[in-house]
C-alpha cells in the first residue's frame, strides 16, 4: 500500500511537471517558428495584396519550379476511402513526390483529419481551427468558413496571383460551369480564394423509374407530369411487384425534402418552382423560389398524392438512408433524384432482385412550357491563403499541374495512371489542391458509349477504361457484378448521363441567379428560415391547409426574407 501511495504521487507530480514544461516548451517553439519565417522572407513581407513579386525575371511559368525548394503548410480532410500502396501515406505518395520534383514544393500538413461529410469531423476540426485562429498558410474551407475568414480580414487577395499564375487550361476549367464558381469566391471585387470546381450539371434533377414495372403494367414512359401521376398511381394500386399485397407506393420522399435522392426538387421543377434558389421575376428583380406561387400549386399536388397513399405515410420521419429501404426492398419504383442514384441506393435493389431495372428520364412539365432543372453552385471547397503567406502562387502551380496531368495536352496515359489510378488506388485524392472539369463525367459517358458501340477502346483515357471494364463485367452476365450495373446505369449508353446530355444539348439547365457569398442577413437568419420552410412544407404535404403557404410567405418576408431579397438585389445590381 505504501509503495502504491508513493507511485501515485510520482505520477501526479510527473503530470503536473509535464504540463508546466510543455507549456514553456511550446512558447519557445513558437518564437523559433516566427524566426524561421523571417529568414525565409524574400522581400515580399507585408505586401499582403500581391505578395507575388518573384526574383525570377521574364515571363511567368505557371509550372515553374522553386529553386531552392519551398515548404508550404496546409491541412487535409480525408475519409476512409483514401487507400495507399504499401509504404505510402498522405504524407508520402506519387503526388507529394511529383510536387517536390517538378515544382520544388514540399507539403507540410498541420493536421490531417478523417471524415469529410457535411457537418462531419473535418468540418468541425476546421471550425475549431478557424475560431481559435490556428491556421495553416493554405486553407481548404467551405463557403461559410470562407466568409468568416474574409470578415476576419485574414485572407490574401488572390486576384493578381490568379491572373498571373493560373495556366490557360486552369482558367478554362474554372469557367467551364460559367462565371459562378469564381464569382462565389469574389468579395468586393477581390478574388479571395480559388474554388475547387465540381460540376453543376451533375446535380441536375431527373426522374428515376423501374422500367421492369413499367413494362409489366404496360405504361408509357413519362412525357408529361400527368404521365408521372399515372405511373405513380399504377405503382401504388396495381401491385407492380406481383406479390398480391398492396405494399408498394408511388413516389419516394425523404424528410429533408431536398437533396440528391428521393427529393421534391425535380417534381417542383416540373411546376416551374425552384425552391431555395434565386430566380429572376418578370420585372427583372431577383426573388426567392420557395415563396413563389408556383410552389403552392406543386405542394397542393403533393398533398393530394399523399392523401391517396402514393407517398409513404411516414416519409416525414425518414431521412435519405431510411427512405432508401423502400427502394432496396422493391416497394417503390419512382423517385426524383440525381445521376448517381444507381450506385446508391438502387444497386441494393438490384442485389436483392435480379430483375429490377431502373432508368432515368428528364424531368417533365405540368403544362406546355418545358420543364427545366435548376441547379445550385457546384463548389464544395475553396482554397484560401493567409495574408502573410510567402508564396501564394504555389497554390495555382499545384492546381495547374493537377489539371495538366489529368486532362492536359502534354499528359500521357502512363503519367495519368501514375497520378490518378495506378494499382487501383484513387491517387488523385492525394493532392491537396485540385479542380475538376465540369464536363468530365459527361465526357466519360460519351466516350464510353461510343466505345461500347464501336468496340474501339483505344481512345479512352484510363479513367474511362476503368469505368468501361466495370460495365463490361456486368454486361458479361457474371455473378456479383451489380456494382457494374450501377456504372452502366450512369455512364452506359442509356445511363443517367444520357439524360444530362439531353439537358446540355437543349441548353435547359438553369443556374441560380445568385451565386455570391452569403449576405449578412442570410448568415443570421438562414437556419431559422430554412427550418420554418421545411416545417410548413412537410405539414402541407401531410395534410395541413394549403393556405398555410400564404402565411409562410408573409412570415418569411417578415422574419428576414425581405431584407435578404434586398441584399441579394443589391449584389445583383453591383455585379
Amino acid at each position, binding site marked *: 500500500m505504501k509503495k502504491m501511495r508513493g507511485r501515485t504521487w510520482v505520477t501526479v507530480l510527473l503530470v503536473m511537471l509535464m504540463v508546466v514544461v510543455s507549456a514553456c516548451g*511550446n512558447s519557445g517553439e513558437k518564437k523559433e517558428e516566427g524566426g524561421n519565417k523571417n529568414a525565409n522572407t524574400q522581400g515580399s513581407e507585408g505586401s499582403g495584396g500581391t505578395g507575388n513579386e518573384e526574383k525570377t525575371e521574364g515571363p511567368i511559368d505557371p509550372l515553374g519550379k522553386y529553386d531552392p525548394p519551398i515548404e508550404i503548410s496546409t491541412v487535409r480532410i480525408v475519409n476512409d476511402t483514401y487507400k495507399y500502396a504499401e509504404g505510402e501515406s498522405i504524407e508520402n505518395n506519387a503526388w507529394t513526390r511529383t510536387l517536390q520534383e517538378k515544382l520544388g514544393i514540399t507539403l507540410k500538413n498541420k493536421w490531417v483529419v478523417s471524415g469529410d461529410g457535411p457537418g462531419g469531423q473535418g468540418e468541425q476540426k476546421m471550425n475549431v481551427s478557424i475560431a481559435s485562429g490556428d491556421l495553416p498558410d493554405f486553407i481548404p474551407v467551405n463557403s461559410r468558413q470562407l466568409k468568416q475568414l474574409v470578415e476576419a480580414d485574414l485572407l490574401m487577395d488572390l486576384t493578381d496571383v490568379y491572373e498571373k499564375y493560373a495556366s490557360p487550361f486552369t482558367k478554362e476549367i474554372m469557367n467551364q460551369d460559367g462565371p459562378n464558381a469564381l464569382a462565389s469566391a469574389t468579395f468586393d471585387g477581390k478574388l479571395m480564394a480559388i474554388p475547387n470546381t465540381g460540376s453543376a450539371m451533375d446535380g441536375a434533377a431527373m426522374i428515376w423509374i423501374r422500367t421492369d414495372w413499367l413494362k409489366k403494367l404496360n405504361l408509357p414512359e413519362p412525357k408529361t407530369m400527368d404521365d408521372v401521376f399515372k405511373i405513380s398511381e399504377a405503382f401504388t394500386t396495381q401491385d407492380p411487384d406481383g406479390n398480391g399485397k398492396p405494399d408498394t407506393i408511388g413516389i419516394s420522399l425523404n424528410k429533408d425534402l431536398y437533396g440528391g435522392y428521393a427529393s421534391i426538387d425535380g417534381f417542383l421543377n416540373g411546376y416551374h418552382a425552384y425552391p431555395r434558389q434565386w430566380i429572376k421575376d418578370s420585372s427583372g428583380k431577383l426573388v426567392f423560389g420557395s415563396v413563389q406561387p408556383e410552389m403552392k400549386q406543386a405542394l397542393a399536388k403533393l398533398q393530394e398524392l399523399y392523401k391517396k397513399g402514393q407517398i409513404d405515410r411516414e416519409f416525414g420521419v425518414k431521412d435519405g438512408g431510411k427512405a432508401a429501404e423502400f427502394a432496396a426492398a422493391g416497394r417503390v419504383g419512382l423517385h426524383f433524384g440525381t445521376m*448517381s442514384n444507381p450506385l446508391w441506393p438502387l444497386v441494393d435493389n438490384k442485389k436483392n432482385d435480379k430483375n429490377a431495372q431502373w432508368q432515368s428520364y428528364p424531368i417533365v412539365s405540368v403544362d406546355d412550357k418545358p420543364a427545366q432543372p435548376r441547379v445550385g453552385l457546384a463548389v464544395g471547397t475553396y482554397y484560401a491563403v493567409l495574408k502573410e503567406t510567402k508564396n501564394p502562387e504555389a497554390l495555382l502551380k499545384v492546381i495547374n499541374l493537377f489539371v495538366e496531368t489529368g486532362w492536359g495536352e502534354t499528359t500521357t496515359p502512363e503519367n495519368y495512371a501514375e497520378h490518378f489510378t495506378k494499382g487501383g488506388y484513387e491517387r488523385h485524392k492525394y493532392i491537396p489542391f485540385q479542380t475538376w472539369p465540369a464536363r468530365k463525367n459527361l465526357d466519360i459517358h460519351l466516350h464510353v458509349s461510343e466505345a461500347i458501340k464501336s468496340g474501339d477502346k483505344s481512345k479512352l483515357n484510363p479513367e474511362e477504361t476503368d469505368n468501361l471494364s466495370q460495365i463490361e463485367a456486368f454486361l458479361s452476365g457474371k455473378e456479383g457484378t451489380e456494382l457494374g450495373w450501377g456504372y452502366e446505369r450512369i455512364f452506359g449508353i442509356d445511363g443517367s448521363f444520357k439524360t444530362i446530355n439531353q439537358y446540355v444539348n437543349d441548353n435547359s439547365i438553369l443556374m441560380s441567379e445568385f451565386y455570391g457569398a452569403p449576405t449578412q442577413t442570410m448568415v443570421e437568419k438562414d437556419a431559422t428560415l430554412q427550418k420554418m420552410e421545411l416545417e410548413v412544407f412537410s405539414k402541407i404535404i401531410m395534410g395541413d391547409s394549403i393556405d398555410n403557404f400564404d402565411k409562410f410567405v408573409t412570415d418569411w418576408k417578415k422574419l428576414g426574407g425581405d431584407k435578404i431579397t434586398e441584399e441579394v438585389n443589391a449584389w445583383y445590381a453591383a455585379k
Partner: protein
Amino acid sequence: MVEQLTLGRRLFVGTNYVVLALLSILCLVPLIHVLAVSFSSSAAATAGLVKLWPVEFTISSYQFVLAKPAFLTSIGVTLQRVAIGLTINMVLTILVAYPLSKEVNKFPMRTVYVWIFVVTILFQGGLIPLYMTVKYTGIMDTIWALVLPNAVPVFNVVLLLNFFRGLPKELEEAAFMDGAGHWRTLWQIIVPLSAPALATLTLFATVGHWNSWFDGLIFMDSPSHYPLQSYLQTVVINRDLSLISSSDMKSLAEVNDRTAKAAQIFLGALPILLVYPFLQRFFMKGIVLGSVKE
C-alpha cells in the same frame, strides 16, 4: 437470514423474476438487432429486411472494419488512454473526495472547495476556449490532451464523497487514535471499505474514456493518433448526396453502409461488455462485513 415463504412472498418473488426478465429482454433486443445487421449482407440491411437474425449471413463487414492497420493502432491508443486516464481519474477522485467528505467544523474550507469543483459541471467555456487552453499548455496531439482536461470527474467525486460520509465514523476515529494521519486513514481504512463505490466509479470512468471520441478528433492532428472510437466514427462515411464531387463516385458504394456501422458498434462495446461482469463482483460484495460490526 432465514424467513418463511408466505404465499404473498412467493407470488412477489415470482412476479419479480418475470418483470426483471422482461425488462432485460427489452434492453437486449436492440443489441441483438444490431448484431444481426452486422452479420447480414449490405443489400438486405439497406432494404430493412434484417430483424433479429442475420439475412444472407456474412462476416464481410467485420473484415471491412478490422482489415485496416489503423484499427489496431487505435486500439493501442485507447488502451493507453484508459490506463492513464483511469488511473488519474481514480486517484484524483479519491484524493478530492476524501477531504471534501469531512464535516465543516473539522475542515472549514471544504464548502469553498466543493463549490469550486461543482461549478465546473455547470459552467463550461465551450469548445474553442478549451482548444486554446489545450494548445497553450502544449499537450495538443498527445495522449495527455485526452486525459488532463477531464482529469477530475466531478460527478464521480460527489458520488464518492457521499459514500465516504456513509462509512462508520468510529473506524476513522479509531485510526486517528492509533496515530494514523489522514493519508494512512484514507488508503488503509477508507479506500478498502469503499470497494463497491470504487468499482462503480471505475466502471463509469472506463466507459467514459472508452466511449468518448470527440476530443480525439479535435485534439489529435493525425488519424494515426486517434483512439478507437474516434477512428470508428470515421469508418463509415455519410455523404451529402446533393454535392457529390466528380471525384467521389466510387466511394458512393460505401455510403451509409449499415452493416459496417453495426459491426463497429458491436466491436466498440464488446470489450466493456467483457469487463463488466468482473467489476460487478465488487458491487455485490458490499462493505467488508467484519469491520463494520466492530
